[in-house]
């Protein structure tokens, strides 16, 4: 029932937002629906930790990894919704947007959340594909939200690249059905049925299908070389949507890839999919590290960091062993920290009215709380202790050092380059003299609390992993 309720409340909220003419009610409904989704997602996670797989209906099924991703989507969704209210109010006060845009924002963001939940819950791969395609359709207008030429260009690039990628993913998805095509066209083929029939999958088809799936859904994840839409889209969307794209959508798309990986591994062993993930992972870390050095826009900086972290997760799943456990943890930490970074980047934008690094100086003076969160977020995302990413990166690299020493050492080198490049840019923004026209002080405490909450949870999970989460991650390790 919880699954239906999550979808229903978000969908109803999206459609009610079209009709409602009072901004306060739209904001209230959006925050309530995201809060309810969060509570219900936690309930589902508890059930999954006990049952293994929670599948109350034919069309919906949540496994341990699904439960983790659901809670991530719900938590990032809740903080993004809470942040969106004061953020969009400030933008309205500055005459950047009007009421129609606010309505459009809350309709589309709720549809986006619904699609992400559906993709996680869907018990059928085609159903999941449809939901992931909906995430593209619902966010395309959020990329072009401010209706400037560069935004329309970014949105078009986003729409075309992701649509082509997902169609290739669709082709790959269909190929997996060759193992069960004797069941006939009317049979509802679930992930579970595909897993059970994986041994009947032709080895060569399994390889080709996984390549299609990895390229297709990898486009959505933003793995290099399919990452090109990411810096453009991330730098143009409103800050809370950037948090959702990076913190919530990335794990959702990864979940789908890993479900196909599990099927492929049964058919042909884990080395083929593992090696491909290592190649794409290493390439992503390398591309991010080399581009970040010359980045001039702090939102693009976060996008490159997102590409790097997608690469690190791919490396973790590619290396296997302890890499899997830490890759799941890495997904969680990245979701929390990257979302906090995007939200604090939103505060910086509101204060400086620019996303150019050269125009943003002295953030720590102008925005003391945001400055601390942004600096802490940078240290956390690049793998500084005491944050969990320090541990996950070390364990992922140690998982690969024996079997793939060259790839591991190269990854380490590129991570170091990325840290240096990121540090150079962040130092330029955080310290120094703030520009003369920029006033000191946070404009609204509600703009600080959501990123602070995200960072606090990230820090908390870095030092203590609750037994519920540990159980879920252990189940993921057994399964993948």
């Amino acid at each position: 029932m919880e699954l239906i309720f999550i979808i229903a409340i978000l969908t109803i909220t999206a459609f009610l937002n079209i009709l409602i003419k009072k901004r306060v009610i739209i904001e209230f409904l959006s925050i309530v629906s995201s809060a309810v989704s969060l509570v219900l997602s936690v309930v589902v996670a508890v059930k999954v930790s006990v049952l293994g797989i929670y599948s109350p209906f034919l069309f919906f099924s949540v496994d341990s990894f699904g439960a983790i991703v659901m809670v991530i989507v719900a938590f990032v969704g809740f903080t993004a919704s809470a942040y969106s209210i004061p953020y969009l109010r400030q933008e309205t006060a500055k005459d950047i947007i009007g009421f129609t845009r606010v309505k459009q924002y809350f309709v589309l963001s709720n549809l986006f959340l619904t699609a992400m939940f559906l993709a996680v819950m869907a018990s059928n791969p085609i159903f999941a594909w449809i939901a992931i395609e909906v995430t593209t359709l619902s966010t395309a207008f959020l990329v072009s939200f401010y209706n400037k030429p560069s935004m329309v260009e970014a949105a078009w690039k986003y729409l075309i690249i992701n649509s082509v990628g997902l169609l290739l993913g669709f082709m790959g998805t269909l190929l997996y059905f060759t193992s069960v095509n004797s069941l006939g066209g009317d049979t509802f083929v679930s992930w579970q049925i595909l897993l059970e029939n994986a041994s009947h999958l032709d080895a060569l088809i399994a390889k080709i299908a996984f390549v299609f799936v990895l390229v297709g859904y990898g486009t959505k994840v933003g793995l290099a070389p399919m990452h090109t839409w990411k810096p453009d889209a991330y730098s143009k969307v409103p800050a809370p949507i950037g948090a959702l794209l990076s913190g919530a959508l990335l794990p959702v798309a990864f979940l789908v890839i890993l479900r196909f990986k599990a099927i492929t591994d049964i058919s042909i062993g884990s080395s083929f999919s593992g090696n491909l993930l290592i190649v794409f992972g290493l390439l992503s870390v390398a591309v991010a590290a080399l581009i970040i050095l010359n980045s001039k826009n702090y939102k693009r900086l976060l996008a490159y960091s997102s590409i790097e972290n997608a690469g690190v997760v791919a490396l973790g799943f590619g290396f296997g062993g302890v890499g899997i456990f830490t890759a799941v943890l890495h997904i969680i930490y990245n979701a929390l920290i990257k979302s906090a970074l995007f939200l604090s980047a939103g505060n910086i934008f509101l204060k400086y009215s620019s996303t150019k690094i050269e125009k943003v100086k002295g953030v720590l003076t102008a925005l003391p709380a945001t400055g601390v969160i942004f600096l802490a977020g940078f240290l956390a995302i690049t793998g500084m202790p005491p944050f969990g990413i320090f541990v996950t990166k070390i364990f992922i690299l140690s998982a690969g050092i024996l079997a793939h020493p060259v790839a591991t050492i190269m990854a380490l080198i590129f991570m170091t380059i990325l840290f240096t490049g990121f540090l150079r840019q962040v130092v330029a923004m955080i310290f120094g003299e703030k520009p003369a026209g920029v006033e000191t002080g946070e404009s609204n405490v509600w703009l600080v609390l959501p990123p602070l909450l995200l960072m606090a949870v990230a820090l908390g999970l870095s030092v203590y992993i609750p037994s519920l989460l540990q159980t879920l991650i252990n189940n993921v390790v057994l399964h993948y």
Partner: protein
Amino acid sequence: MIMNIIFLQFLLEIMFLTIIFLHLTKKNFSAAVAYGIQSLVICFLFINSFFETGNVYIFAIVLITFIVKVILAPLFLTRLIKKHALSFSVSTYLNTPLMLIVIAGLTFLAHSRKFFPLTDIIPTNQVLLSMALSTVFLSLFLIINRKGVLSQILGVLSLENSIVAFAIFAGLEQSVGLQLGVIFNIFIWIIIATVFASMIYEHFGSHDVTFMKNLKD
């Protein structure tokens, strides 16, 4: 096969030719019509599936596909062409002789032994699957090679049609509900893509994607 295999091959050849036409044509209106014809071929392939399986619900797919892809999609595109007076399509990255060489190469690749695992999913349909696979490759090439927004939209739609054709001949058709979901998705995609095409024209005064150079770091 209820429909003669020669007839099915003929249908696929029409589909193949529509994609070649989309590569070569300089007129947007003809391109929109070619997509409509291509989609009509897909409708015929679904009718064949109905005769094979006896599943009456497939008629719902035929009907919806006909409405969305044969009528509405070309209608939206022609309205866009008329609205912005876009009679002639934007050029390609490769010149025509080079383009034809690439098309021949991709068609050859789809028929080569490299892709034998895919084209041999149903051995009796090997010729059909090879041709369907070549339409997938050619549609991808269409998206990459064309500079026009409208051509890119047609490329994506053509790629989707090609994958559907491949799935039909490979026996990978999904349940009716899921197929309707996919078609509905495509319908929304068409609406969004045409809205963006209008927005691009308003902002850049052209449908040429090479005019869009605002995404500097």
